[in-house]
């Protein structure tokens, strides 16, 4: 049985094609079920995110599976095969294992190390598992990949540091205030980044979000989106005095928050920190504001520098993450080979055991006069001899370096001990 992977990703296909081949918007279980019942395939997992649509299958014939999968994709999405075929990538066995491990580790993501992908891999597997579309091949490799994803995240800094401006702002807020519960946010001017940042802050459990904008309707719109409170523009100074986090994003040509204004508002604050995120260009906050003792002022450039630093830090971790993935691929393949040696080992043991029993049977007449204790001892000794004889061959069979060698050894053992003649109903096989 082979592991076979066919798919498109952001590395091989443009976004419009990926959208057309997206499985996630439709019934994933039906797709996996349809694939798993194809003649050449027995198991299927469909991994579909905005950056990839990948079909993992267990098949006896990869070439045949590829053809069947191409025609399936074409029919399922109503896209002609020549449209997407040049963008497909196909991988088999260890290469497919390595790919899945890289995906789970976040190494194949558009933003390297992004955290969602591991959950998406788990969901894809669960969806197939719930409809019994997975068997030993996919089950083992997917379960192993969860561990790889976790290992890369704990042992490297691949997923560390915010890589978008809004997340960078939230991470900074957490570093200043700790838990954000109960802290008040003031959003001045409604724009895309301020909306995103406010939403991220909301998910972190901030207390109140107050929004003000020169156009009150904009403030109300954003308030509805983030669950905040829209206040009139002229009450901004009051709101400034009560806020812990301020996000400014107006189109104003001149600073709207000055040092004097803020110092007046700070009078009531008694030393509690104030974090100001100035996303506007030109800037909304007078840079002198950042000189006030407990004020932390970050503008869009500062945040972008943080994002770039984090991205380069992640890039520096890629090598370590790749080596973990390679290490895990080797471990997985070795483990799998040791498992595929199991039927041969079992057959060999059965062969030896049946010889032992038949010899004891043959000597029944001579052993008859012995006391039950002595007979038990004879039985024990013969069993131990068999165990000892088999110990080394078992270890060796499990530790063979590659599939070819393993096939040769299995064949040799089968012939030397006539295993298949002896147990024809359960031939030793490789998976």
């Amino acid at each position, binding site marked *: 049985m082979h592991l076979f992977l066919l798919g498109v990703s952001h590395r091989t296909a443009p976004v419009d094609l990926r959208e057309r081949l997206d499985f996630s918007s439709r019934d994933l279980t039906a797709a996996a079920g349809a694939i798993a019942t194809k003649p050449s395939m027995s198991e299927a997992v469909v991994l579909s995110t905005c950056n990839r649509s990948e079909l993992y299958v267990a098949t006896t014939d990869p070439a045949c599976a590829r053809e069947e999968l191409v025609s399936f994709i074409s029919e399922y999405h109503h896209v002609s095969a020549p449209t997407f075929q040049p963008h497909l990538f196909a991988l088999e066995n260890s290469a497919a294992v390595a790919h899945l491990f890289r995906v789970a580790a976040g190494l194949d993501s558009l933003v390297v190390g992004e955290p969602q992908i591991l959950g998406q891999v788990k969901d894809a597997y669960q969806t197939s598992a719930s409809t019994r579309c997975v068997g030993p091949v996919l089950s083992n490799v997917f379960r192993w990949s969860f561990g790889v994803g976790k290992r890369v995240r*704990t042992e490297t800094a691949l997923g*560390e*540091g915010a890589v978008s401006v809004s997340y960078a702002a939230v991470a*900074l807020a*957490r*570093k*200043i*205030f*700790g838990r954000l519960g109960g802290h008040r946010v003031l959003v001045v001017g409604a724009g895309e980044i301020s909306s995103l940042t406010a939403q991220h802050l909301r998910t972190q459990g901030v207390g109140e979000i107050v929004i003000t904008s020169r156009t009150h309707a904009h403030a109300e719109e954003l308030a509805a989106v983030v669950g905040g409170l829209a206040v009139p523009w002229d009450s901004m100074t009051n709101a400034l005095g009560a806020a812990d986090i301020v996000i400014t994003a107006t189109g104003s040509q001149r600073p709207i928050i000055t040092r004097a204004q803020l110092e007046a508002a700070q009078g009531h*604050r*008694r*030393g*509690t*920190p104030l974090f100001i995120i100035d996303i506007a260009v030109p800037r909304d906050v007078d840079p002198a504001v*950042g000189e006030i*003792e*407990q004020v*932390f002022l*970050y503008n869009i450039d*500062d945040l972008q*520098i*943080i994002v770039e*630093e984090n991205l380069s830090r992640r890039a520096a971790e890629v090598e370590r993450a790749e080596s973990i993935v390679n290490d895990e691929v080797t471990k997985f393949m070795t483990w799998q080979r040791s498992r595929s040696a199991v039927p041969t080992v079992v057959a060999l043991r059965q062969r030896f055991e049946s010889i032992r029993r038949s010899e004891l049977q043959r000597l029944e007449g001579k052993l008859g006069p012995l006391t039950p204790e002595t007979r038990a001892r004879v039985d024990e000794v013969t069993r131990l001899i068999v165990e000892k004889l088999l110990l080394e061959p078992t270890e060796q069979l499990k530790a063979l370096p590659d599939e070819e060698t393993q096939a040769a050894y299995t064949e040799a053992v089968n012939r030397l001990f006539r295993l298949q003649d002896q147990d024809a109903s359960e031939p030793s096989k490789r998976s």
Partner: protein
Amino acid sequence: MNTLPLLLYAAAGVAYAIHFARRDSTVGRAATTLLLFGALVHTFVIGMQTMEVRHLPFANFSRAVSSFVWLLTLSYLYLELTTDERSMGVFILPVIIGLQLIPVLHPGVERADPVLDSPWFWVHVSSLLFAYASFALAGVLGVTYMLQFKEIKKKHLGYFYTRLPSLQILDIMNSRAVTVGLVFLTFGVIVGAVWTAQARTIAPDDPNLRAMSIDDPKIFVALLTWGVYSFAIFARRTWGWTGRRAAWLSSLGFAFAMVNFLAINYFVTTSHTFY
């Protein structure tokens, strides 16, 4: 006898440093375990010494330092286990290890002075050692606050940013440690004064007791330390001196406390030399 705790503290210190640099939680847990083990052995050592001299081993400089280290370790462990925050360990362990070297290198002999045979004296010393332990924690929290503050304020998010807890948490912990320390310092000084008055009636000619006055450097610096911390709390409440100012004041206060505890005792004071 103090060597085994020192070795365990040193091992914990190395583990805390590795944990801080690599952010490996397994090493972090190992560090805490080593420190807990060190504190346990140290408790045993102090227990043995208490049984030997029939009172807490404070009346000898080295033993007082050892007791202080023990209290500091327990206070730090309390802080770590209640906040689940290990990154302070790398800052506090050097203080613990450095001070524990004193009793190891100069064990000293404890002389039981009949003047000291009063419960007031033991309450006085225990309170002050505990106050110093709190100030040590506050001082370390203050230093780490300043490191973190500098990185965030200057927008150079680097080594400490990724490793230390948030500014607000550091500030709150600092404020608590200073308050607890000040309560014990105040209590300790008052008890000391009461005991001196009592002891003078028993041993009017004792040179130590005669030297107990505001002119004595030890007492003077103790009151100065008390002044610094009282000011820190007052300024926080009244003018909102939190954050970096509070951090700076608590570091200054700790410097005074340590000079008083270590240097002045050794070289200058004429009171407080019962050994």
